[in-house]
């Protein structure tokens, strides 16, 4: 299963400690623009920098495949809410016929939603990878719930939505 993953989701997956696990069930693709964003984040001195450095190791080790995308291929998707990283990810999905894009950037997801639908590309958030790892028996529902609760604390207003959905998940699965 091929996925194109943007910077926000790569960092979220690494934050939850499941990025490496995801390579067992998926092929992760990124663009050179995402790679550049990660390098910039890695140059700062904060928690995200540590996460970005870890992700970069997976790229240099070939676990994550980086594809070069020309500006012309994604500039038409740029807007007030969509930066180069997410725009290039959508362009990569279209160019490489990859039907899944993972982004945790709500602004970009919303702005790219219509084009993605037209191109039959599904947009998901990083939780989808976690759910797939449960299906594959790589992680448990209880472990996944802990990871999601930690993730909620890191999110902006999206944390409000996730909080409710995690509680619903706990109730439905009797955890």
């Amino acid at each position, binding site marked *: 299963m091929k996925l194109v993953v943007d910077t926000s989701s790569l960092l979220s997956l690494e934050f939850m400690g499941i990025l490496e696990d995801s390579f067992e069930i998926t092929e992760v693709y990124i663009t050179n623009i995402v790679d550049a964003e990660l390098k910039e984040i890695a140059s700062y001195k904060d928690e995200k920098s540590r996460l970005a450095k870890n992700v970069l190791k997976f790229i240099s080790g070939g676990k994550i495949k980086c594809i070069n995308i020309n500006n012309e291929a994604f500039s038409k998707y740029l807007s007030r809410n969509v930066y180069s990283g997410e725009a290039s990810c959508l362009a990569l999905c279209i160019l490489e016929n990859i039907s899944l894009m993972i982004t945790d950037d709500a602004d970009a997801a919303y702005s790219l939603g219509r084009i993605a639908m037209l191109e039959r590309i599904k947009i998901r958030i990083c939780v*989808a990878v976690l*759910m797939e790892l449960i299906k594959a028996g790589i992680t448990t529902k209880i472990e996944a719930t802990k990871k999601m609760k930690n993730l909620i604390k890191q999110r902006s*207003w999206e944390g409000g939505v996730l909080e409710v959905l995690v509680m619903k998940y706990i109730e439905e699965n009797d955890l």
Partner: protein
Amino acid sequence: MTQMLTFREDEDIIEKLDELARQKMRSRSDIVRGAVREYVTHKLELIEIQKLAAKRYTEGKLSFDELVNILGYEESKKVAYYKDIAEESFAQGLS
């Protein structure tokens, strides 16, 4: 205590910044400092409201129309879209 912040910006924006600074008889730094303070404060307040509204909407305690009254149409559409893709992510994983 203050810290220095440096950043790069396109020339046309810098020209507009200088024009604004001239009209307001302020320095470039004053204008940027004021803009950053206003944006950061406003944005953090907005996020808190948005987070609570998004939570209530996902719980089904707020209708979309009520959400629009609180956040405005565009922001509400964004919340509703995010709720949809988050629900799909939980329910369907990568399928």
